[in-house]
């Protein structure tokens, strides 16, 4: 009897053991690495405090390596230009702060999971972390203790130029629980509101003299392209576009202003005339959603995308747009500024001199455009970094030193770029993008004071659109709102799941039954998952902050 009991217990603990190490994969290794990482961070913070009392005597006697982590694929190993640029940059960095820089790339495939996983290692292998409050998990990571809280003294001592260039209000937007966690990219003009880039010349052929002005025009456009250019796929979308599509539709058909950083669907927000009353258009705007579902069914029937769009992961739509294989690209304005310019390898402009790329932005019909949050790009310091003060010094140079800035953003002058008599950038003769371009993905500290304009860009078109935006935009109103979602996290996760599953079917017209039925079913599921509780909780937090 005893033996049986023993065997049972052994068996139980073996199966449980599997639970602890098997299915939760990273958890244990992450956890053990963490404890030591946290200890390190604490140790270094204490030394910082000591150092900051005596700002003049920054000890840089030891040569250190600073690793900067960014999203985006690593450069092609065949191209050594990034390494060469780094070599020159490191010579300067060594001279100025006795440090060298290394770049750690997080490839776009499953980037969010890999990004968070790399941060979670907390073993001191990463120092600077490029992050964002809307499209990367800046706040969740800050809350989990992955980022080092930056004191004012630290910033003043080690990143003085950055400290000065960012205004006090902007620093406030980078605080969580009174601590600064992010250094924002707040002096860089860019628009990342989404929309469709399309062939303006084809739209005109389709009878849209002013180009695409509405979603209905897009339908006309796609229909025309399908008939007139049978070899072109109107839009070779992959299955991940559903969220932007429905979000864009809602922006175009209401005054909805979403709150960033709650879930990827940005399903909660206020309206332009009543910013601080939280609602979810996905629950309230039923008629609009039904109309969306119907139009997308029509698009699916036209053949805008491939039949198996939901399993299509191999789409290379943006590259295909440049060479005329597709007729539209859904992305943000910044991407369009590239697409509308006649750059090297954009064969649509070589093949057809009438070719033009227009942009239909979400919210065009209602003039609903929200300017970018300043933490759309920001730099954080890893809490596990062994040299946080040197990391700050390096960042300060990358962001504010003209020489370092040009090297890090544009590469070696004469090889990767050159400057013409107007002071604009152009590609030198014999430039080959495969070997002469650099990849640093520095989207966390660009600086308009040091930017050199790209002469190949279609600035006429771009500046027209920017002016239009400036005339209608409102500033992002919720910069200071860092929601505390602990109590509603499980509801939000289930809502994400419902949103994803239904919206994929709705946005690609793959649902069975009528549009009314699928939208009703979707909203019913949202309600039973507790979307109203989440709205109420967010409202309570809003009231506490804004009233």
């Amino acid at each position, binding site marked *: 009897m005893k033996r049986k009991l023993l065997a049972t217990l052994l068996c139980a603990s073996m199966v449980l*053991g599997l*639970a602890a190490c098997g299915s939760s994969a*990273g*958890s244990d290794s992450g956890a053990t690495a963490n404890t030591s990482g946290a200890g390190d961070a604490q140790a270094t913070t204490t030394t910082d405090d000591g150092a900051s009392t005596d700002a003049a005597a920054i000890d840089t006697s030891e040569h250190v390596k600073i690793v900067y982590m960014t999203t985006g694929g690593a450069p092609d190993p065949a191209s050594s230009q990034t390494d060469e640029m780094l070599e020159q940059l490191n010579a300067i960095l060594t001279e100025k702060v006795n440090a060298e820089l290394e770049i750690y790339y997080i490839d776009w495939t499953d980037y969010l999971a890999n990004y968070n996983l790399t941060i979670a290692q907390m073993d001191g292998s990463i120092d600077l972390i490029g992050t964002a409050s809307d499209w990367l998990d800046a706040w969740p990571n800050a809350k989990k203790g992955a980022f080092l809280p930056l004191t004012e003294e630290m910033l003043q001592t080690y990143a003085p130029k950055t400290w000065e260039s960012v205004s006090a209000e902007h620093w406030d937007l980078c605080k969580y629980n009174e601590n600064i966690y992010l250094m924002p990219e707040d002096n860089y003009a860019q628009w990342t509101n989404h929309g469709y880039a399309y062939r303006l010349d084809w739209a005109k052929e389709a009878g849209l003299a002013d180009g695409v002005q509405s979603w209905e025009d897009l339908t006309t456009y796609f229909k025309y392209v399908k008939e007139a250019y049978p070899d072109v796929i109107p839009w070779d979308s992959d*299955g991940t576009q559903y969220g932007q599509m429905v979000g864009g539709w809602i922006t175009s058909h209401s005054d909805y202003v979403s709150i960033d950083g709650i879930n990827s669907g940005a399903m909660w927000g206020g309206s332009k005339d009543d910013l601080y009353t939280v609602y979810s258009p996905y629950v309230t705007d039923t008629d609009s959603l039904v109309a969306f579902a119907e139009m997308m069914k029509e698009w699916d029937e036209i053949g805008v995308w491939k039949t*198996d769009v*939901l399993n299509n992961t191999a789409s290379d739509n943006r590259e295909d747009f440049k060479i005329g294989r597709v007729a539209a690209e859904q992305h943000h304005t910044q991407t369009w500024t590239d697409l509308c310019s006649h750059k090297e390898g954009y064969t649509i402009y070589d093949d057809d001199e009438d070719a033009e790329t227009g942009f239909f932005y979400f919210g065009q019909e209602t003039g609903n455009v929200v300017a970018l949050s300043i933490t759309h790009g920001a730099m954080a310091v890893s809490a596990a970094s062994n040299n946080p003060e040197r990391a700050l010094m390096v960042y300060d140079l990358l962001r504010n030193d003209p020489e370092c800035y040009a090297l890090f953003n544009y590469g070696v002058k004469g090889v990767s770029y050159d400057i013409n008599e107007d002071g604009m950038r152009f590609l030198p003769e014999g430039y080959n993008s495969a070997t002469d371009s650099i990849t640093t993905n520095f989207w966390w500290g660009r600086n308009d004071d040091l930017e050199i304009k790209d002469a190949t860009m279609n600035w006429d078109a771009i500046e027209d659109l920017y002016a239009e935006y400036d005339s209608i935009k409102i500033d992002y109103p919720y910069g200071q709102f860092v929601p505390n979602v602990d109590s509603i*996290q499980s509801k939000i*996760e289930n809502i994400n799941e419902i949103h994803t599953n239904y919206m994929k079917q709705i946005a690609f017209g793959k649902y069975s039954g009528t549009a009314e039925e699928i939208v009703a079913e979707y909203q019913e599921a949202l309600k039973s*998952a507790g979307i109203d509780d989440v709205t109420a909780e967010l409202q309570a937090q809003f009231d506490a902050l804004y009233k």
Partner: protein
Amino acid sequence: MGKGKAVAASATGGKKKRGIRETLWKYRTLELMCLPAIIFFFMFSYMPLPGIYVAFVNYNYQGGIFGSPFIGLQNFQFLAESGKLFELTKNTILYNLAFIILGNILAIFVAILLNEMRSKWFKKVSQTMMFLPYFISQVLVGILVYNLLNYDYGFVNTILVKLGLEKWGPYSDPTVWPVLLVIIHLWQQTGYNSVVYFAAIMGIDAEIIEAAKVDGANGFQKIRYIILPGLRPTLVILLLFAMGGIVKGNFGLFYNVVGTNSILFPTTDIIETYVYRAATTEFNFSRASAVGLYQSIIGFIMVMISNFVVKKIEPDYSLF
């Protein structure tokens, strides 16, 4: 180990004091051979046990497993709140049952076929070819299946169109996936699984088969009365082990083949894929561990039940 002790105890008889030490010494070679396995299980199964605690905390990097705030069963609440727990568990178990039952039947069948093959050359070649899919990464399997089955330019549809037939759209039809997934799984695993049974057949005493031949048994009788009963212990043990993992889905296969195509979820969503989608962006260790614990507890119950059943029917074959 238990048996060894029992035997040793009866052998040494009355001298109980020196019994254990003597036994340990007597079986030192066997113990030494066991040592790597014991160390392995100790390090990877027993040492991480306290880590189960992570399923009950709100994990943060600074606090680590034991420093993070305790939140009780909140991590399990998420699974319950989804309202899908039953459906997910059902899908996971049904798929695994299909995999286990069909997988073993097919593996035994293949092993017997291999055993009956006369040409050594052909036997080796077919064994290798069946074994190969096992080494293909699930990611590639996913791409392979997509290129075979997709609607616009898939291999199958190209042929159907050439034959003047109508196109087939499995990626928008959830009903066909249980069959497809089982087929894919069997294609990948059968070669590997059959090796175990093939080895078991090799282990059957050749004299028995000789004797049967002398008695005039034909090929089928040989299989029916000698080989199949000879495989029974192997089958029972493999089934018992498989039972422990019956609520653990084959994430690689499902995620790579089905992807995030929500049209297919009613028939293809398993616990792993659901948790992956819901928690991947949050990177929530605690929640993942909570799910792992839930799966392990059910796995443990399944092992106990099946062992109990086996013991009732065939006491010799039970694990304990």
